């Protein structure tokens, strides 16, 4: 028994020579000595490519931050001088992509000073950019990263009807500039009863206190933005007389979304909320990624007919008292079966944190989602939804070398991630938590 605890903790140092060398570079959550330009070959093991099946006994070559070769070990030549990572007996897969997190916006949930989750003075806040609050050095990122999450959407908390603009990050890098891959990649919208928060039945209320009010307010915001654009275009004409309109950052922020240039992530849980929200989206020709839909079991065919991707869940959302216990667990499968492109997210993370994302996917498999589709839902699908399918989400030549090596099935809670590569660099497998563990470990090992 004493021996078993040691194995995972020593990060298989004896097994994987590379790990040791990688960790001497610069241990620490984010600090790197600069991304490596070394060529690394991951050899052996089972490779889940996502796009072209599983390769038993495969090889992936990474160089210059990209994947430069993928294939069977037999057919893929390891270049001279490449470092070899021995992945025999392991499972190798692309870094996981979490489609909704609050990473870098909160440290300790109960400590308001550490929270930058959402502005709540108004329901319409498209001019808020999470990139402006993103705390790259958060302790949470290395913790999630150690379980194989390499990319994530950072979104404001679901507090407002239009809560702000999301960013996409990679979970490793020198600082925010390197970790923020693209700011303002999507608009975070919510049409949920929980946003209806200004009602005060014991005193003065403020508009909006109902879903009618919320819908009205959203519609007015987009109409104002359209009017603003017309006004601005008119002022840009050479024959225009008078002062140009005052620059309005709030309305300006909505324009790329009105043009359909970028997606809105539109959250709704109840079926009627989904329908009203989609009605608004159609009215303004928004490019939609639906989010949550956890109590929309009665309109699944309708959701499929929208032909929009869906971030489903959380699968742990509770069924209603009149629903079977697995009504939400089976939702990813039910949507996928109808041809909907689905992603899963850790949705704020909960108390265990975003590191549990792969287990949510595994649970969806338990309730009917095909395994390959579950893997896609936390890799390629979210990457594609946010326009990053060319660079992330699968083991394919030319993609960013975000690769994870684990000692088993990535979706199983019993599996340990052994090494994470981001942009072809072996990330130190260290977090504040592993340091605490190692600091106190002698206590645990000294007894028989």
């Amino acid at each position, binding site marked *: *028994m*004493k021996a*078993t*605890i*040691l*194995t*995972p*903790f020593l990060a298989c140092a004896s097994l994987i020579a590379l790990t040791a060398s990688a960790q001497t570079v610069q241990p620490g959550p984010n600090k790197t000595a600069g991304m490596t330009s070394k060529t690394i070959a991951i050899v052996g093991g089972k490779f889940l490519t996502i796009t072209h099946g599983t390769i038993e006994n495969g090889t992936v070559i990474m160089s210059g931050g990209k994947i430069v070769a993928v294939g069977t070990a037999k057919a893929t030549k390891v270049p001279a001088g490449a470092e070899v990572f021995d992945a025999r007996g392991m499972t190798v897969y692309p870094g996981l992509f979490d489609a909704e997190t609050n990473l870098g916006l909160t*440290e*300790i*949930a*109960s*400590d308001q000073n550490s929270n930058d989750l959402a502005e709540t003075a108004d329901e319409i806040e498209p001019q808020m950019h999470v990139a402006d609050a993103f705390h790259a050095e958060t*302790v*949470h990122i290395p*913790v999630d990263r150690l379980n194989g999450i390499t990319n994530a959407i950072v979104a404001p908390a679901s507090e407002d009807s239009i809560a702000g603009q999301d960013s996409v990050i990679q979970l490793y890098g020198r600082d925010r500039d390197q970790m923020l891959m693209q700011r303002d990649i999507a608009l975070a919208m919510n049409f949920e009863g929980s946003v209806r928060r200004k009602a005060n039945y014991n005193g003065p209320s403020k508009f909006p206190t109902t879903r009618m009010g919320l819908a009205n307010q959203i519609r007015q915001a987009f109409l104002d933005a359209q009017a603003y654009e017309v006004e601005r275009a008119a002022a840009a004409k050479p024959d225009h007389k008078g002062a140009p309109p005052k620059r309005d950052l709030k309305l300006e922020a909505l324009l790329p979304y009105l043009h359909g240039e970028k997606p809105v992530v539109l959250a709704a849980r109840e079926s009627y909320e989904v329908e009203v929200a989609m009605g608004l989206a159609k009215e303004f020709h928004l490019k939609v990624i639906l989010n949550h839909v956890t109590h929309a079991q009665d309109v699944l065919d309708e959701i499929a007919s929208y032909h929009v991707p869906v971030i489903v869940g959380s699968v*742990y959302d*509770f*069924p*209603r*008292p*009149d629903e*079977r*216990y*697995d009504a939400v667990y089976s939702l990813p499968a039910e949507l996928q079966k109808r041809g909907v492109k689905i992603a899963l997210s850790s949705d704020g993370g*909960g*108390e*265990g*944190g975003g*590191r*549990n994302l792969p*287990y949510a996917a*595994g*649970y969806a*498999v*338990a*309730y009917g989602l095909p395994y390959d589709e579950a893997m896609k839902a936390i890799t390629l699908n979210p990457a594609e939804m946010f326009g990053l399918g060319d660079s992330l989400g699968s083991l394919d030549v030319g993609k960013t070398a975000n690769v994870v090596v684990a000692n088993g099935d990535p*979706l*199983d*809670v*019993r*599996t*340990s991630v052994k090494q994470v590569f981001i942009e072809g660099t072996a990330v130190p497998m260290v977090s504040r*938590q*592993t340091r*605490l*563990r190692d600091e*106190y*470990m002698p*206590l*645990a*090992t000294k*007894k028989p």
Partner: protein
Amino acid sequence: MASLYSAFLRRYVLLFAAAILAIPLSLAAQTPSSSTPTDVVIQNATVMTVTHGTIPHGSVWIHNGKIAGVGATVNAPAGARIIDAGGKYVTPGIIDPHSHSALGDDVNEATSPVTPSMMMIDAFDNRDKALYQALAGGVTTELLLHGSANMIGGQAVVIKNKFGLSRDEMLFPNAPRSIKFASGENPKRVYGRRGEVPSTRMGNFEVMRQAFEDAKAYMASWDAYNAKVAKNDKDAVAPKKDLKLEALADVLRGKLLVQIHCYRADEFLTEEAIAKEYGYKIRAFHHALEMYKVGDKIAPTGTGIATFADWWGFKDEAWDAIPWNAVMSMREGVRVALKSDSNDYVRRLNQEAGKMVNYGGATEDEALRMITLNPAWIIGVDDRVGSLDEGKDGDVVIWNMDPLSTYARVEKVFIDGDMFFDSSLPGFGTTHFNGVMHEAGFGGSDDEGGGQ
């Protein structure tokens, strides 16, 4: 109107009568209301006994609600109901030693930091949907605890998750009494923001000491009275019965299992010191996220822990939480259980146990023990449930595969030999439930909410 009135009668008047007469419903609790087959045999399964290893192609025989045989073969009589579980896994029922399910919003009587006479059974709602969802996750026994707003909260209720039966039929017969204590941020915050004591950990523990001093004085007054009575002193005047002080006296008399919510290493040591000072034992620290720091010092006290698998960082006192806590503490010799403290996680405690294989290399037996036998010990019912052993209650779960896998689903749940859940049934999959479930109450987590 008539039906409402009869429902009222059923629910309150009869219960009240039962409590006064102390007969009818306690008998009912021992004889299940449905017809339970006398003998059930689950055969051809991978049987995870928890106490004596895993039996491939094994059988479990339940006779009159108790486990009568476990092994490669069992001597069940002809005519027993045979359930073929080929390719499936069988475990004892999952036990959650820290739940706030089915208590509505009545989790904290947060009007005084010392409320030991609050009885959680008075808030128990047996139709809360959280119980059903937990049953579908294989949970057969739960300790329903007061929250952590108070230093000394109320007395817990132990239930068997016989969802669909009456409130009294769901009580775990003759389970030991537990009481909930708490220290740290929650009582600090609740009372501190009102400008009351405690607003610090100093205040936390001072409130406790004063409560026990009061209890000692109360006990002394009764001792003096009883001594006078023993000497036939006609002038002896009985002290006033005080529910609060009686409950605290029962702590000092060792009649209550003390379950303490606290997170930090220093608090475990302070709590143990106070327990020693006043002469009571602590059954378990709940949450206990820093036990890995002082496990070697707590192990000799015999106090167990009921901890989270991987929760962390949601508050200051959870900042040093690490997911290796459970296994590291176990290696130190501390008895470790995992718990939900949540209507969510209670549905998949098997996965939380599975994580222990990853975080620390627990064996499957060790991991499974954390959600069966060890929580049973914390509740004080490990002689009755928590493993597949002859003589124990017939609380058995059939899984479609190894329960520590993410992919495992519960197929059937037996409690006292009676089947309460079968996922192959249409609708809810319940066998005893009719009617309407109630929306879940507060449920957790970190027990700081409800009722404040």
